[in-house]
């Protein structure tokens, strides 16, 4: 992992009226890192993520993603990132191949690229038999992996995963994280939000949000030491209770 910063924010804020959903958050993500973005529901994770993915304009502060400004260069950011939403976000009534072609197409991949990468992806997932079947006929466990593969088909610099393993069984979750590691090994930066504290351990570094602010920030090891805890669950509980704000 090198130390080049691929996401950098300074006092990034999003206010809806007088309510600050995201309140002056400052952090950075390094290239090729798996960065865990944690927090309870309503802590401001999604809002922060939407600003970073160009879906939402920030109110104030500064942030760059892949070297582009989130205020003025949203379109350029969108070209360089992949996004997987927390709902299963492929089309059920399209086949695997059609989904690949459609999503690859909207990111501007050429026919040759689509064929090449699509075939490679289907082989890697071992889904050659079902590539022409509609996705609704494909077992649920596969869908998440397919969605991740589709989100990275255009080889983005950063992939944003919004609670990708919600409602998935432990074995599939394990396999899913193997895919995340693989992507990170290939140089893709992974920005992932999650509820599962055991997953937080898999990340290189994490940030924890409480009430729109970053209340914990660092590697899992550092955080456990800082909060004198044995596991991330304890860290999370302590942070959520408001003990010992490390930053800000």
């Amino acid at each position, binding site marked *: 992992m090198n130390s080049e910063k691929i996401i950098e924010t300074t006092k990034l804020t999003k206010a809806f009226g007088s309510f600050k959903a995201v309140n002056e958050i400052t952090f950075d993500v390094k290239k090729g890192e798996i960065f865990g973005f944690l927090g309870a529901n309503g802590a401001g994770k999604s809002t922060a993520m939407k600003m970073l*993915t*160009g*879906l*939402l*304009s920030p109110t104030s502060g500064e942030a760059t993603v892949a070297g582009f400004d989130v205020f003025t260069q949203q*379109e350029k950011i*969108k*070209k360089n*990132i992949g*996004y*997987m*939403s*927390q*709902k*299963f*976000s*492929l*089309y*059920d*009534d*399209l086949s695997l191949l*059609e989904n690949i*072609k*459609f*999503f690859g*197409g*909207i*990111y*501007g991949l050429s026919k040759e690229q689509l064929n090449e990468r699509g075939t490679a992806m289907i082989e890697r997932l071992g889904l050659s038999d079902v590539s022409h079947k*509609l996705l609704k006929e494909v077992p649920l466990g596969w869908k998440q992996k397919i969605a991740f593969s589709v*989100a990275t088909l255009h080889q983005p610099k950063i992939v*944003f995963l919004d609670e990708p393993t919600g409602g998935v069984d432990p074995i599939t979750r394990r396999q899913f994280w193997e895919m995340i590691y693989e992507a990170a090994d290939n140089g893709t930066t992974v920005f992932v939000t999650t509820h599962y504290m055991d997953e937080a351990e898999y990340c290189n570094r994490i940030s924890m949000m409480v009430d729109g602010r970053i209340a914990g920030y660092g590697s899992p090891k550092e955080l456990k030491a800082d909060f004198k805890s044995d596991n991330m669950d304890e860290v999370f509980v302590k942070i959520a209770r408001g003990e010992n704000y490390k930053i800000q």
Partner: protein
Amino acid sequence: MFDRLKGIIKKEFYHIFRDQRTLLILFGIPIVQIVLFGFAISNEIKNVKIAILDQSKDEHSTQIIDKVLSTSYFDLDSYLNSFEEIDDAFQKGRIKAALVFPPKFSETLQKESKADVQIISDATDPNTGTQIGNYLQMQVQQYLMEHEVTATSTLPPMLINTEVEMRYNPELKSVYMFVPGLITIILMLVCTMMTSIAITREKETGTMEVLLASPMHASIILLGKVIPYLLLSFVNASLIIALGKFIFEVPVMGSYALLIGEIILYCLVVLALGIFVSTIAETQQLALMISLFALFLPTMLLSGFIFPIENMPLPLQIVSKIVPATYFNIIIKSIMLKGATLSFILKETLILAGIFFFLMGVSIKRFKIRLE
């Protein structure tokens, strides 16, 4: 850019053609409706069963009866012998009208150069009842004209002959009204309901978020989603016009180019309405409810398709003024039936265009806010 747009359009067609319910709404409803309206619902006077009570059985009465029965409007049910039998025939539902000649009909007519004929019409359905009465009366009067019943030398003192011409629809066929009306309704159904559902469906499944996170501009996404419905609406409109023309002989008097242009304009208006609905509704179900109750019903009832706007109470007349279908109804009837050119329907066309720009502006604004 164009490839991406094509991608979305193609995907939307997959959705449409793989969902049988969508297909049924798109193509089943128009065909069923036009057949229903065309064949089953009819205001025409044709082969109406009548009974005759002829108490004279003389020259003029039999000739009038022959004339009445020789038209395709009336069919003889039976000759009756008494007034009681008329009541009986009405109550049993055998007849819709009865024609009664008093005794010594010809004689009276010759002597006094006037005589009475009684027409009894079943007015449980007032419109048809009146119409049947008028038709019968017309037959009798025509007979008098043709035969100049002036056996005595005294001519009738004065006679004003009114001639009624039913312009644009001489046979008073109801399909003339239903075909243009159905186009209005069905385009609304396809464009507004289907697009609002298609857009909200993507919101529900979460795919809209993924699309918006892609480098594609929101307007391209919207465009790609509505173009398939625009094309299908056009197919639908053509289908209805063709069915009307070849099965029900509803003419297209005006220019096809103008008709096509106006249909596209109306499609754009109702598509914009569909996009607007999708910015209000978060779920498919809500989109469906809004489309059906807030848009479909007023269009059906207040656009002048079924009930004449002039006869509505003032508040409803005002509502009808903001229903886009009201204007399109005028436009399409004028083009198809009266052969109107653009200059005759310019006002309505401009109003529709105005509604389109207004809705589009509001929708785009709301669509953007939704993203926030």
